[in-house]
């Protein structure tokens, strides 16, 4: 990190700690929730303290193989999760989106990426040491990374993910991953720890299995998990893929859900409706989730995006894993 100017990360760390403390005092707070907030605290504190600790921060877009960054001792900064977490906890999404308009991005571009660009344009987000992005999951991601790289002036790498999964496309992906690692070794002066990467790949196996089992448990009637925690699962996956803490979190959550099911405890009681959403829940308006809370509609959200979107991610994880294995 090359700057010490205060950014939203400072506020985010304070907010995460506050929410974590409040959670501890909740009678029904699950241990996995406490772990989740402590993981967020550690994640954003690492970003915040990177400069003092001679760290190297790589800002990256969604669906980026963070396992590589962790294995190289690089501090990841997940652009989209960071902005949606600031939106949820600090309620400042309009500052980001307005800044995106000021940066010249048209309203037709999706608001998360307008907000991201705005965050860097107005220096609300910290100056990264490198900018990394892929073309997953849409054209917005493919293009926004390049713009962020220009805005920050940081060294950058675009990881070009092929359209399909033929043998040659696999080979192309491997060459892209090798180029990424070479780029990171050069710009960060850090070496890839291949043993650590191997451990991450093995850890990913466990996490894919756990995510699948959790999705199955959520189908129980009444559903044991509230929709509010859906974003936790996404965050864990996006930010901590392949890390032992993520396995620990998922293991705890799975056990908690299984216990609830065995006792017939649902996230809402009685469970009147079971709903399905088709995409990510509205992180910029968390209040909407409360509309479905026990005292109002008495329903359970079962998120299709989580089920299938996350499945997509697991498929991707499997691919990363396969590719990484071949790179190893």
């Amino acid at each position, binding site marked *: 990190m090359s700057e010490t100017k205060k950014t939203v990360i400072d506020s985010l760390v304070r907010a995460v700690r506050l929410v974590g403390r409040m959670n501890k005092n909740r009678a029904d707070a699950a241990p996995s929730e406490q772990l989740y907030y402590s993981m967020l605290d550690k994640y954003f504190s690492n970003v915040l303290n990177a400069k003092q600790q001679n760290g190297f921060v790589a800002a990256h877009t969604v669906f980026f193989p963070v396992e590589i960054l962790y294995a190289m001792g690089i501090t990841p900064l997940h652009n989209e999760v960071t902005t949606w977490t600031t939106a949820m906890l600090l309620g400042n999404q309009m500052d980001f989106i307005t800044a995106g308009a000021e*940066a*010249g*991005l*048209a309203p*037709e*571009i*999706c608001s998360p990426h307008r907000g991201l*660009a705005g965050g860097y344009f107005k220096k609300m987000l910290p100056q990264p040491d490198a900018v990394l992005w892929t*073309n997953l999951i*849409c*054209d*917005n991601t*493919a*293009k*926004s990374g*390049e*713009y962020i790289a*220009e805005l920050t002036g940081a060294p950058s790498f*675009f990881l*070009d993910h*092929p*359209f*399909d999964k*033929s043998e*040659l*496309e696999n*080979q*192309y992906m491997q*060459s*892209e991953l090798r*180029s990424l690692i070479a780029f990171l070794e050069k710009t960060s002066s850090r070496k890839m720890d291949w043993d650590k990467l191997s451990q991450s790949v093995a850890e990913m196996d466990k996490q894919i299995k756990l995510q699948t089992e959790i999705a199955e448990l959520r189908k129980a009637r009444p559903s044991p998990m509230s929709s509010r925690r859906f974003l936790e699962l996404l965050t864990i996956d996006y930010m901590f893929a392949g890390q032992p803490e993520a396995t620990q979190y998922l293991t705890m959550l799975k056990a908690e859900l299984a216990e609830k099911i065995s006792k017939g405890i649902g996230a809402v009681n009685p469970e009147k409706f079971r709903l399905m959403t088709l995409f990510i829940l509205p992180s910029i308006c968390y209040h909407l989730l409360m509309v479905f809370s026990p005292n109002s509609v008495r329903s359970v959200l079962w998120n299709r995006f989580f089920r299938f979107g996350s499945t997509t991610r697991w498929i991707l994880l499997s691919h990363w894993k396969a590719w990484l294995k071949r790179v190893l």
Partner: protein
Amino acid sequence: MTQTTGLKTPSLEFFKEVNRTFPKTKEILAHKAAGKKVFGWLCTYVPEEVIMAAGTLPIRITGYNQEMDLEDGNAYLYINNCSFSKSCLQLGLRKEYDFLDGVVGGSTCDGARRLFDLWRYYLKPPFFQVLTVPRKTTEQAHELYLSQVEDFKKHLEEFTGLSITDTALLQAVKVMNESRSLLKELYSLRALPEPLISGQETQEVLNASFRMPKEQFNTVLKELLTDLKQNALGYKPKARLMLIGSVLTNAEFIKSIEELGVIVTTDELCTSTRYWSDPVVLEGAKSPLAAIAHRYLSNFPCARMYPSTERFDRIVKLAREAKVDGIISETIRYCVPYAHDIPLLSDRLKAENLPLLTLDVEYGTSGSGQIRTRVQAFLEMVEARK
């Protein structure tokens, strides 16, 4: 006011007639009547030469020539899909492309991919393929794209029962390169101090090139070039503009700009320079197919490609060559790659002292009303700088 529609030659009228009758042009129907196949392609990353070498007529799938009420397109595609994909789909759903034996696309953008999904599902063309198109032009990316083109060739051979020989590929390259060379010559007449052809007229020529056999197109284009050189009076525009952006086929849009007394002397669109600009270079290539694949991936890049600096560099070069006074960027609403390029492109053009007007439009728009007012204001600014 500059003369904008005065050029009347049989060759230009022929091209206009092709466009008036599209998609079911006389030329396409004649090809079908001869028992030959017609393939529709979408996106400039699909190698037409391979289709031609299979004895098949490649035609470009586009939407309506005008802005239309897209009832079917809106019903099947999300609100944030571009109107180009909606317009194409609607024509397909209304059986305007029912003569197609195959559809080939590139994995270029979200709008195109959603269009392919629906086209395959609802229209079920006998042959269908989407080529993986890398966003980079590294050596590995070229290897991948070549493998895609090889796969496409094989698939096409299986479908047609014909072998696509190197001889046929070389002949297709010859025809396509001649088209490119003739279009380059046309553009040179357009960029003269007193342009011999307007932007609107050029777009008519380009549109026709997508919608008829290339050999026939080349013959008529040669006639047009001769007519222009011998008979055309040069335009005397009060300003020279460049048009850049995504896909545009409605020549009326350019006409509405040129009616303000200017000439669009060059362009950078999916349906213009980016389509024809680079020839297939056979020298040094491992095979004709390798040369074709190399050309398509390293051609004038569209906004989806990385890095965007090459697109920007080429825009600036074209603008300088055509001595333009200003640039109009037309981005189809919800076309993410082009919309994302605008801030960086604006900075670059500002640094190059090239005025830029950015327009968000719907595909097929004729450029009336508010657009015309904005162009007028831009022209006042451009003229004041002269």
